[in-house]
């Protein structure tokens, strides 16, 4: 079977936001994202090994999750193009974030929702 060859461009190649796609600029972008991800992972691991006497347990988890969120922002923003998407995508994500916050809020609420006179230790 013959391999499909490079197809003739039927239109100028454009990205989702109608800007021309340049291969080299994406290589640079990806290299940058990869370096940031590696640094973020290294920072998370380093933080997790910090003695708890120096940094409380909850502060440690908070910092680690903050770095993870930053990492996620970089991946979503630059690899999924979320920094320059259409309004429809942001609308879908807005609803999603609202529901996820609601889900977590219900969980946290349920943790403290005991019947009257319940003895907790």
């Amino acid at each position, binding site marked *: 079977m013959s391999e499909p060859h490079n197809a003739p461009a039927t239109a100028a190649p454009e990205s989702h936001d109608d800007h021309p796609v340049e291969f080299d600029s994406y290589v640079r972008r990806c290299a940058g994202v990869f370096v940031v991800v590696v640094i973020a992972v290294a920072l998370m691991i380093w933080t997790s090994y910090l003695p708890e006497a120096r940094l409380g347990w909850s502060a440690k988890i908070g910092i*680690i999750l903050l770095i993870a969120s930053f990492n996620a922002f970089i991946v979503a923003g630059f690899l999924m193009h979320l920094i320059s998407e259409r309004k429809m995508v942001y609308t879908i994500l807005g609803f999603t974030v609202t529901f996820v916050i609601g889900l977590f809020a219900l969980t946290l609420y349920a943790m403290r929702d005991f019947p009257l006179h319940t003895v907790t230790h």
Partner: protein
Amino acid sequence: MEIPYTVEARPDTGLYNAKVGIWLFLASEVMLFGGLFSAFVLLRVSAEPGTWPHGWQNIVLGTTNTIVLALSAITTLMAWVACKVREFGKFKFFHGCTLLLALTFLCIKFVEYSEHLNHYEIKLTNGDIYDGDMVSNDPARDHVVISGRKDSSEMDLYDLRAQKISESEITIPRSQIASMDNYGPWHNNYLALYYTLTGLHALHIVGGSIVIGYLWGPGRKLWKKDPERFTNRVEVSGLFWHFVDLVWIFLFPVLYLT
């Protein structure tokens, strides 16, 4: 019949239909993993101090998998870029890399699961507790052999990072064993969540690999006929793959580091 808006954007959404579809699907996926993460938070916060496992995971393997998945996210994006600039050879190369990286991730996950399933906690009739990797568990013999240590109390089993662990080969007569349990999902809440979250994530890796493999293999015929539509398929599969990477970005610190 021609399916509308496979290439050109719909005027009202500004996107081709498959892209709206994948974002709606990803929204439902966020809720799925969100539910499991909230279960994790609930159980983690409710656990008695000192009874939540810490240091049970192999951080080197977890970090390697994080890097592997990050690289695969990049090769997925580059595969899409290659399609956009009409270089099909590069597309094949980058998506081939993605498939290899996905396979690497799954192999490492398999090694991790095997390590856990071969790790045993053994309680003796006199109250002593041993834990370690099973070396010999031949039912024909009257003893088992583990490579592990004796724990002074059950609390020793939880926080492994806080202890200096020296392991040796220990022979335990079967007659003295009260209970013997490996580190499967039935062992405790932490492992139940670990297997559920990472198992579901691994299933997503398998699903994504099948789609990417299809586009790399038989699905590539579309490139000749309609390269723009093929490129959109690559973009949609890529968005799913990036989501899988995003989930791992949170799974890694939550399960391995905290």
